[in-house]
């Protein structure tokens, strides 16, 4: 595959700046041409394969009555075998095609479960079907070269578990405790040193757990205090679970100092937020003090997450989180001075703050990045 213009230009610049030799540049070019792939190409390939599979399913569906059940199954398993053989033997030296076929087989397995259920008129709880799919496709998801397999598999497995638990009619408190345990389990496993086989699962688990903590704790929903499941035992368990997750970071020696420190700050303020919102509920729920303290925890916790992202080399994410903090501050300004913000003056002041924030960011961004780089220097994973 030919190199894209951006990489080609970078290689030339680095060569001219004597950062790399012409031999190194040639080696990089050859490596990229052999192993590199465009995500657009991958996307189109995946879409094409998905169209073919869906087309086959649609053909069977539209001729449902005229195709005998046995023939439907023979067709289905025949195509499965053909796709499997192509993956194992036909496209050995084409990683993109292999990856597409793995994802297609994962989808095709789900279609098969549906087809068999239709032929034999089966009707069970949805979690059974999803759990069966997860069991069938675990190997395909693990063998995926990209995170897509894990991204499809892990939320499905969590979904199946959630559906199963919701069918048990557990109390809200028990449900919350289980949800916390799952989140902390995902976060802890995602924070440990990356294992060659499970690395994509760990990455997805880490992202899912971080997002859950972000939305359910650090964002500081004041109304959470009034929920019946937000009991002392739930609060205590959440703090312990976050503590275990934080401790897991100690064992991951591949993470640099900044990433670890930033994430500890994030988890610490998430725990503080939970405790604070729990203790505040009986005294000054919804008061200005509660809101300000909660936003303060949000700002500091999100800042910790931003520092962790920066230190890990995710600068776009760092910028996004900084903007999120800025908008949260604007939000609390509008919330506290709601009567004023409805007037012309309120709107003007919000607009001025936004422009001032953008100007300050534009001016300070370069020096901020430099300072952070110096402060957080360490080894990347």
């Amino acid at each position, binding site marked *: 595959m030919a190199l894209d213009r951006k990489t080609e230009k970078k290689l030339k610049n680095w060569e001219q700046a004597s950062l790399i030799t012409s031999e190194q540049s040639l080696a990089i070019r050859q490596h990229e041409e052999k192993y590199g792939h465009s995500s657009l190409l991958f996307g189109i390939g995946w879409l094409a394969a998905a169209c073919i599979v869906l087309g086959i399913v649609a053909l069977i569906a539209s001729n449902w*009555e005229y195709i005998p059940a046995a023939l439907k199954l023979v067709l289905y*398993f025949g195509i499965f075998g053909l796709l499997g053989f192509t993956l194992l033997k036909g496209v050995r030296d084409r990683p993109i095609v292999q990856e597409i076929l793995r994802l297609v087989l994962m989808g095709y397995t789900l279609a098969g479960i549906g087809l068999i259920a239709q032929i034999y*008129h*089966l009707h069970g709880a949805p979690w059974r079907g999803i759990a069966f799919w997860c069991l069938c*496709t*675990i*190997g395909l998801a*693990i*063998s995926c070269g990209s995170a897509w397999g894990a991204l499809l598999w892990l939320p499905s497995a969590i979904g199946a578990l959630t559906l199963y638990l919701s069918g048990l009619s557990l109390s809200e408190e028990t449900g919350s405790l289980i949800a916390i345990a799952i989140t902390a389990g995902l976060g802890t496993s995602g924070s440990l040193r990356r294992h060659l086989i499970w690395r994509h699962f760990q990455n997805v688990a880490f992202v899912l757990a971080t997002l859950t903590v972000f939305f359910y704790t650090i964002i500081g929903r004041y109304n959470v205090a009034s929920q019946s499941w937000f009991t002392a035992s739930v609060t205590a368990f959440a703090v312990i679970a976050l503590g275990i997750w934080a401790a897991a970071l100690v064992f991951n020696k591949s993470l640099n100092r900044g990433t670890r420190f930033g994430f500890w700050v994030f988890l610490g303020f998430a725990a503080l937020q939970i405790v604070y919102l729990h203790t505040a509920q009986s005294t000054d729920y919804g008061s200005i003090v509660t809101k300000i303290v909660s936003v303060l925890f949000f700002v500091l916790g999100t800042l910790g997450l931003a520092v962790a992202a920066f230190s890990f080399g995710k600068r776009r994410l760092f910028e996004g989180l900084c903007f999120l903090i800025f908008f949260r501050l604007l939000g609390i300004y509008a919330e506290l001075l709601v009567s004023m913000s409805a007037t012309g003056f309120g709107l003007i002041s919000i607009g001025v703050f936004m422009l001032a924030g953008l100007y300050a960011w534009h001016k300070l961004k370069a020096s901020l990045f430099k300072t952070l780089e110096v402060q957080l220097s360490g080894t990347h994973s």
Partner: protein
Amino acid sequence: MVPTLKTKAQTLAVALPLLALLVWTFSIAMRQGLAPASRIKLVAYDPTDLLSGHYLRFRYDFGSLNICSENANPPADRAKNQETCICVDEGADTTLEATLVTDCESVAVSCQQFVKGHCQYSSFLTDSERYYFPEEYASVLAVLPPKSEAEVAIGTDGSLAIKKIFVDSRPLLDFAKDELKRKKP
């Protein structure tokens, strides 16, 4: 060429879903094929569903016994979707009727033929309450036609699998075809 560990793992990853689906299909086919066929009366169920028009929804009519009533013995734990077993026997019109609600652990001792299911409020469900049909019959099969009966296979473990539906002794799809012709002369 000796297959590497990676190749073996890849082969296993592809073979796992294929084998699992094959075993599943085979076990259903065997269960349905070997078990003797019986008939159960059906009653229509609210067809409101996003996918209605692709399948019929119904409930089995096991006669006058209150399977999921709070007064049943043993009382059904409706909140927990607890497994419930019923002893069944052929009634006067040769369709199966429930004769006893019993504990699933001792059901094999209590009766010769039984059906395993669970209570959802007042309904006794067996996870076999759908019947798929081609979409072209959606207009005439929005609701289960009256006088419908299901031909089912009941496994030794009490699992129930639906084989066919008959409307007044006619196969469901024949009934649907006639109804469609009648609607569009």
